[in-house]
């Protein structure tokens, strides 16, 4: 519809993934298409005394092989997964940062749990051994901007930098914000966007459980089943994705097509609990489509937020139905294979959506077998659905009312 928007929209030219579904873009994508779940009983610590005992854990991540030795003691696992994903994303995009002007590159990551495990470890040392035993790096490892800062330093990126904290919605916000920065500054070639998370230590898990939305079901396969008759809450997980968002001009100059463009974005905030006003999701979807200059019928697939909590699933299904009509568009929730990764969640969803566009295949909703009666959405279950895809809509909602919607479109037209 709006050809000029596509013609100038920035493109995702590189993706790096570290996730419970696999390390590396293709490993993740293969697992998603095969419906191979990364959710297992938590083995980082003994979860027996917690009501939530399952999570999406990253396995086989060799810290020493992925993170420079000087960075290891300075960083939480959250930052370490981002360091590896950013390196892979840059390689995927064929970008050598040292060859580009340092002020033309920026970093905009999402953070949610931040360096919880690092912080817990140092608090333990403080209380059991005393202040002299607390790592100096506690000063820089735990806080929300740590990953953005380390990535900017590591790759010599002195352009726009920031961190966005909107729980599960943050990943989409980084891409929306980076898109705006690129549009505003002709000198800005690219930003590292997306994010990862590492919420699997006792302190972080306990903090998550207080939101009352997590599943205590004692079964890895069904504990997190959004839109399903068995929906009982959600599970969390670690990892995510880093994506290179590059200006159209820069990508064209380098002869890179990329995975697809970021063509529309909107954010919204839910009204307070008990309000008569509707949730922000429908309005946010409509605003994102308007921003992209698209009609609902232009959207080929929706990657849903999939809270896993029945009343939130219903609200999402109703918002999708209100915009697209009953069963008006295929909807998928592959994040049932990873759990909700908070800062990494929507970031990974965007990566998955771009891979779906690339290959013309909608991955199924992982372990969810069918949508519950009453949800009038076309939930993709039982196996991938092969069909031509041009445009995907990714939805995300974060605890506290954060809502975001992002439109990505295939790179080759």
């Amino acid at each position, binding site marked *: 519809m709006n050809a000029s928007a596509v013609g100038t929209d920035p493109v995702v030219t590189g993706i790096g993934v570290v996730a419970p579904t696999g390390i590396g873009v293709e490993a993740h994508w293969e697992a998603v298409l095969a419906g191979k779940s990364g959710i297992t009983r938590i083995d980082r610590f003994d979860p027996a005394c917690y009501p939530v005992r399952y999570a999406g854990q990253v396995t086989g991540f060799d810290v020493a092989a992925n993170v420079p030795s*000087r960075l*290891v003691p300075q960083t939480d696992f959250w930052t370490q997964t981002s360091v590896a994903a950013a390196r892979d994303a840059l390689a995927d995009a064929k970008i050598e940062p040292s060859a580009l002007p340092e002020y033309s590159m920026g970093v905009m990551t999402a953070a949610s749990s931040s360096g919880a495990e690092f912080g817990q470890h140092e608090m333990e040392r403080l209380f059991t051994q005393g202040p002299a035993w607390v790592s100096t790096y506690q000063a820089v490892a735990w806080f929300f901007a740590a990953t953005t800062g380390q990535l900017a330093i590591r790759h010599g990126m002195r352009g726009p930098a920031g961190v966005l904290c909107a729980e599960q919605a943050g990943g989409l916000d980084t891409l929306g914000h980076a898109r705006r920065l690129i549009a505003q500054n002709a000198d800005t070639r690219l930003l590292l966007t997306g994010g990862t998370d590492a919420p699997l230590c006792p302190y972080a898990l306990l903090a998550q459980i207080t939101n009352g939305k997590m599943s205590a079901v004692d079964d890895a396969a069904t504990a997190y089943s959004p839109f399903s008759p068995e929906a009982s809450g959600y599970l969390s997980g670690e990892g995510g994705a880093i994506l290179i968002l590059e200006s159209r001009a820069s990508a064209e100059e380098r002869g890179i097509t990329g995975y697809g463009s970021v063509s529309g974005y909107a954010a919204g905030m839910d009204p307070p609990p008990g309000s008569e006003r509707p949730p922000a999701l429908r309005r946010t979807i409509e605003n994102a489509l308007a921003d992209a200059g698209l009609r609902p019928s232009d959207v080929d697939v929706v990657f849903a937020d999939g809270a896993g909590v029945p009343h939130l699933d219903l609200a999402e299904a109703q918002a999708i139905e209100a915009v697209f009509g009953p069963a008006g568009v295929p909807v998928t929730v592959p994040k049932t294979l990873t759990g909700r990764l908070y800062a990494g969640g929507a970031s990974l969803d965007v990566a998955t959506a771009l891979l779906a566009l690339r290959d013309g295949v909608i991955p199924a909703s992982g372990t969810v077998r069918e949508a519950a009666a009453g949800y009038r959405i076309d939930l993709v279950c039982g196996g991938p659905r092969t069909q031509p895809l041009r445009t995907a809509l990714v939805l995300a909602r974060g605890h506290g009312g954060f809502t975001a919607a992002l439109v990505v479109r295939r790179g080759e037209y």
Partner: protein
Amino acid sequence: MGKFELTDLAEVMRSSVGVEEGVDLDGPIGEVEFTALGYDSLAMAEVISQINRRFGVQIPEEEAFDLLTPNAVVEAVSSRLVEAVR
């Protein structure tokens, strides 16, 4: 506790804050400034903190920032260990 030598310092640096690629802590680093070896003030604060704990000395932070080379650190630690023995 005894002596504190360059190799002890190198071990603390290696195990507590890591080593930059291309830097050899077993080489002749005694008079090379820490910044040239890739260690900023935060890294040195951590190194001194670890030395204080492991070797039972108490080099205050303010003094730590004036110790610009490995030899200076070795001397600061050694002189305190000698005092402790007396």
